[in-house]
C-alpha cells in the first residue's frame, strides 16, 4: 500500500464540501454512497460470489444501475466463507466526484469505508454533523449528536487496503455485457468481411496470373494496345480475303451469253478487276446488275464499256 500512501486520501460523502484537487487522490467512499451486507456463503471463491450479487441485492435496492463488489471478511479465518458484499451506482459516485470538483483523471483509487475503517475502535467525527463507527463489523455513518465521545478522524493515518473498485464511467449508457456482445458481433463481422476480402484478393491475383500465362503461352505482345492493333491488321486482311473469294466465286459463276467470255481477272491494291469480252450492247448492264446484287453499300463498282468489252472494277 506504499503506492497509495503517496497520494492524499479524501473521504467522499454526499455532504462533503467541494475541494480543490490538483494532484491524484485516493477516495474512501462514505457508507451513505454504497450498500453493504455481511454474508456467510458456501462459496469458495470471491469471483463466484460476485455472480450471485445481483440476486442477493435484488430485493434490497431501489431502482438503479448498480455495480457489485465483494471480498472475504479479513477478520475471520480463511476457511470460513464470510463475505462483505457491496452494491453501488457508478454514475452516482462519478456525479458526486464531479460535484466536489474532483476530476476522474485525478482519482488514483476508490475504496469503501467498510474495507478501510472496519477496525475502528472508537467513534470518529467526520465533520460537525456526521460521525463514523463500526457496529457488528459494519462501518456505519451516524449523526454526530448520537455519539458522545468522538475522536477527530485523520485520513492521512489510514493505510489503504487492496480492496478497491474501478468505476464504470459509462455503465449507465451500456453495461459491460451488452458492450462485449455488441463488440463481439462487430468484430466477428469484421473478421468475416476481412476473410472474404482476402479470398477475393486471392481470386483476383489468380485471374491476373491466368492472364499472364495466356500472354506467355500464346507469345502475345507485351501490351494489349499492340495486340489489338495486330488483331485489327489480321481482321482487315481476313475481311479482304473473304471478299476476294466471294466476288471471284460470283464472277466465275456468272451465266454469260454464248459469245461472252471472262477475258481478264485481276486483283491488286484492294481492287478486283474483271473484263468481259464479246458483250453485246445492252447485256453489259445485265452483267453489271448481277454483280451489284452482292455488293454492300460502301463497296464501289466502276464500269466502262467499249468495243464489246465490259470493264468492271470493284473496290474491296
Amino acid at each position, binding site marked *: 500500500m506504499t503506492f497509495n500512501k503517496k497520494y492524499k486520501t479524501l473521504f467522499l460523502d454526499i455532504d462533503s464540501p467541494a475541494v480543490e484537487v490538483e494532484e491524484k487522490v485516493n477516495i474512501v467512499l462514505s457508507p451513505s454512497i454504497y450498500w453493504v451486507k455481511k454474508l456467510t456463503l458456501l462459496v469458495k471463491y470471491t469471483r463466484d460470489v460476485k455472480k450471485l450479487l445481483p440476486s442477493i441485492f435484488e430485493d434490497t435496492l431501489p431502482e438503479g444501475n448498480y455495480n457489485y463488489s465483494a471480498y472475504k471478511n479479513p477478520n475471520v479465518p480463511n476457511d470460513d466463507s464470510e463475505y462483505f458484499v457491496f452494491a453501488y451506482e457508478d454514475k452516482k459516485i462519478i456525479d458526486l466526484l464531479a460535484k466536489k470538483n474532483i476530476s476522474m483523471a485525478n482519482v488514483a483509487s476508490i475504496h469503501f469505508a467498510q474495507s478501510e475503517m472496519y477496525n475502528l475502535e472508537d467513534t470518529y467525527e467526520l465533520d460537525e454533523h456526521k460521525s463514523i463507527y463500526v457496529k457488528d463489523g459494519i462501518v456505519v455513518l451516524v449523526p454526530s449528536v448520537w455519539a458522545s465521545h468522538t475522536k477527530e478522524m485523520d485520513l492521512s493515518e489510514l493505510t489503504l487496503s487492496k480492496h478497491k473498485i474501478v468505476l464504470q464511467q459509462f455503465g449507465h449508457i451500456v453495461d459491460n455485457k451488452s458492450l462485449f456482445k455488441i463488440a463481439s458481433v462487430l468484430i466477428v463481422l469484421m473478421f468475416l468481411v476481412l476473410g472474404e476480402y482476402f479470398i477475393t484478393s486471392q*481470386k483476383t491475383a489468380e485471374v491476373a496470373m491466368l*492472364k499472364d500465362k495466356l*500472354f506467355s503461352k500464346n507469345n502475345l505482345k507485351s501490351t494489349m494496345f499492340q495486340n489489338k492493333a495486330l488483331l485489327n491488321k489480321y481482321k482487315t486482311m481476313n475481311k479482304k480475303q473473304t471478299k476476294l473469294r466471294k466476288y471471284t466465286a460470283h464472277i466465275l459463276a456468272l451465266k454469260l451469253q454464248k459469245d461472252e467470255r471472262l477475258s481478264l481477272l485481276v486483283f491488286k491494291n484492294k481492287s478486283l478487276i474483271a473484263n468481259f469480252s464479246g458483250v453485246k450492247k445492252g447485256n453489259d448492264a445485265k452483267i453489271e446488275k448481277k454483280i451489284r446484287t452482292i455488293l454492300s453499300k460502301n463497296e464501289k463498282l466502276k464500269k466502262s464499256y467499249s468495243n464489246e468489252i465490259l470493264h468492271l472494277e470493284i473496290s474491296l
Partner: protein
Amino acid sequence: MNQINPIYLALLLVVLLFLSIFKLDSQRMSLVEEKQNFKSTQKLTNELVDLKDAYSNGVKIKKELQRILNNPSLRASKLVKDFKKSSVKINTQSMDIASINKLMGKVLNGSYNVTNLKIKRLSDTRVSLFMEIKW
C-alpha cells in the same frame, strides 16, 4: 481513472466494419473487372492465334502450297514458283482451263493471303497466270 466512452469504441468498430466492407466491395469490383479483362483477353487471344495461324504460319503455308503446286495434274502447266522468306510468286505463260480451275479452287478454298492475282484468257482453253501470296 479516465475511461474511453464505450460508444466511441462501438463507433470505432462500426467505422472499421464499414471500412472493411468498403475495401471488400472495391476488391469485388476489381475481381469482376479482372475477370472481364481476362475474358476479353482470352477472346482476343483466340481470334489472334487463329488468324495468325491461318495467314502467318509460314512453315505450314509453304508446305501446303508446295503440296498443291507439286500436284501431278499441274505439272504440264509449267508453273514457275519463286519462294521467298515471307511470300511466293507463281506464274505461267500458259495453262489449260482445267488446271487453273483446280489450282484456284485449292488456293481460294484455303486461307492464304493472296495479294496479287492476274488471270488472262489466251484462248478458249488456255490462260496465263500470275499470283503472289504473302504470309
